[in-house]
């Protein structure tokens, strides 16, 4: 392939990603640990209820989990463990963080995956159509609705969907049912409202991005050439314009991923009571359960950093002119 520089570039980016991830984790650790309460508080509530001595319990628990050591020692120990792949112990759930994540990641994953598929497929189709028919009534309607879509607060949309479809019409349950088998029609049905909640904003964004990326390319010389050659319009749009529009489109879509994982999905999980990673890290913040908060932050950040890297590398194959030095 003659892309010898690519290996060096990937290594550089990976190193860079590790540094960024470390920075983010440190800030998260510090923020959670300077919080107003100790992770031991959760135990405390249970044990004082059974009439035991408070101060003794706190000391015992803090010694047991190393919480009595100075903050910097805790930090070094925690980061050391993290480096070896040990995510630690969840105080509020009384189980290893890794087990907690193993049982909950799938709920976030299915929500984000289904919403992305829904939004990307529909968004790209509508966006292309809107660009090809620029300044027609269809285009105006599509543009208007994409404005509506990006302006709808997604948590409010979720509440409204529950109000109309669950409370008034009784078509869906108001809460996500975790007892359903993963690959079942019932589970899919339970995800309809959450996917609409998360997917609408994404869909609107994709329509806008696709439309503008298509318009950027529609008036280029090579399009005129392709038409002049007598190629059918389908081929011109599909092969010549869309392929060139794909690159900027992918950039923006990948750039948005972080805000979707941490913003939209997070709120959607809370509205519908889906026990995904967003929900557990949210509960963990309130319980001061820093191993869970840091672990979920680590997962989310790693996904975002990795996806960015993969996108940048993929560019060099999509467009061989691109070089990073």
């Amino acid at each position: 392939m003659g892309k010898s520089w690519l290996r060096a570039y990937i290594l550089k980016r990976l190193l860079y990603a590790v540094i960024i991830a470390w920075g983010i984790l440190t800030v998260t650790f510090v923020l959670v640990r300077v919080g107003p309460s100790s992770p031991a508080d959760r135990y405390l509530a249970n044990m004082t209820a059974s009439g035991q001595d408070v101060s003794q319990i706190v000391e015992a628990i803090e010694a047991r989990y190393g919480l009595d050591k100075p903050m910097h020692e805790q930090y070094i120990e925690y980061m050391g463990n993290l480096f070896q792949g040990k995510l630690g112990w969840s105080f509020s759930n009384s189980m290893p963080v890794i087990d907690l994540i193993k049982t909950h990641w799938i709920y976030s994953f299915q929500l984000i995956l289904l919403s992305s598929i829904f939004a990307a497929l529909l968004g790209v189709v509508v966006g292309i159509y809107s660009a090809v028919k620029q300044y027609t009534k269809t285009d105006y309607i599509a543009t208007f609705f994409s404005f509506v879509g990006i302006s709808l607060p997604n948590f409010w949309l979720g509440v409204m969907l529950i109000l109309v479809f669950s409370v008034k019409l009784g078509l869906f349950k108001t809460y996500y049912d975790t007892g359903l088998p993963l690959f079942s029609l019932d589970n899919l049905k339970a995800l309809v409202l959450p996917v609409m909640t998360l997917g609408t904003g994404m869909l609107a964004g994709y329509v806008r991005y696709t439309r503008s990326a298509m318009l950027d390319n529609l008036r280029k010389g090579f399009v005129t050439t392709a038409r002049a050659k007598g190629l059918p319009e389908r081929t011109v749009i599909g092969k010549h314009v869309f392929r060139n529009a794909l690159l900027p489109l992918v950039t923006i879509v990948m750039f948005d991923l972080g805000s979707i994982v941490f913003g939209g999905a997070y709120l959607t999980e809370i509205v519908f009571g889906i026990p995904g990673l967003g929900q557990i890290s949210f509960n963990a913040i309130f319980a001061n359960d820093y191993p869970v908060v840091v672990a979920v932050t680590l997962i989310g950040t790693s996904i975002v950093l990795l996806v960015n890297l993969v996108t940048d590398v993929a560019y060099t194959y999509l467009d061989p002119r691109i070089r990073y030095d």
Partner: protein
Amino acid sequence: MTRRLRDIARKVGRPLYVNRRLVNYYWERTRRNKLAVVGLAFILFLILLGAVGPFFTLDPTLVDFEQKNLPPVGFTTLKSVYDIETDELATSEVRGIWTHPLGTDSKGRDMLAMIVSGARVSLLVGLIASGIAIVLGTIVGVLSAYLGGWADNVMMRFTDIMMTFPFFLLLVLIVFIFGPRLVFIVLAIGLTGWTGTARLVRSESLSLRTREFVMAARAMGASDGRIIFRHLVPNVVSLIIVIATLSIPGVILAEAALSFIGLGDPTVASWGIILEAGQHSLDTAWWVAVEPGIMLFLTVLAFNFLGDGLRDAFDPKSNI
């Protein structure tokens, strides 16, 4: 002819805030976009509502359990009252009344008054927090571009880290730690939201830095401070106006989202706080969740319309 050209050149080179002709030109271009004008009109209406509205409405904190869960005018709901005499649930129809045109919540507070005072909160949060973010972003961006070298490198790498940081999670953490006070919420949003501005301002300033008028200023012995504040900053004003307009809705939504998950300031009736309370009474009083949401939606939509129009007017090719 030459005089005219020189005249034009002088005017074009002048920054936006002293150049009336340019301002008029941009205004004409923005005005052609009808949605932008509608957006601007709604925002002005909202500012007026927030500024003088509270003087005309009832007290938004006035609790009246006699009048609780009244629907908006034109709507009816069913209300079940337990009758201790007959030991039965008596169901009666309740109509909205003009004393409370938008209805009341579960504590009998007037929804109209709460929505109006919420407008004030949301606008203040939006303006102040994005103000902080934009000032910070502009400082970082201009300095980064002007200084170059290691200073640029350090600032931009820091910006990268901040950009990768899960924004909403960071907000939740900060607000949880410092407590749900409106001041902290505004500060948290402002202090974390400057990264996009920094990047855009930096790339704009990088190109400005090499332009003739900056070189001329330097040749005439202008100090760094003078070049930055008299030549670079004024010339990124148009960019900043667009970024501000497009970032305010994000800020308003962030505050609402925080309130929605229970991290809002409980002493202030922001739209997010009302909405949060409303989602728990969907079956008895749907309007409590619907009304603040509609206002939130319309406000965000208005800013997006205006921002889009302004961007097209300033620079039709840009992709902010």
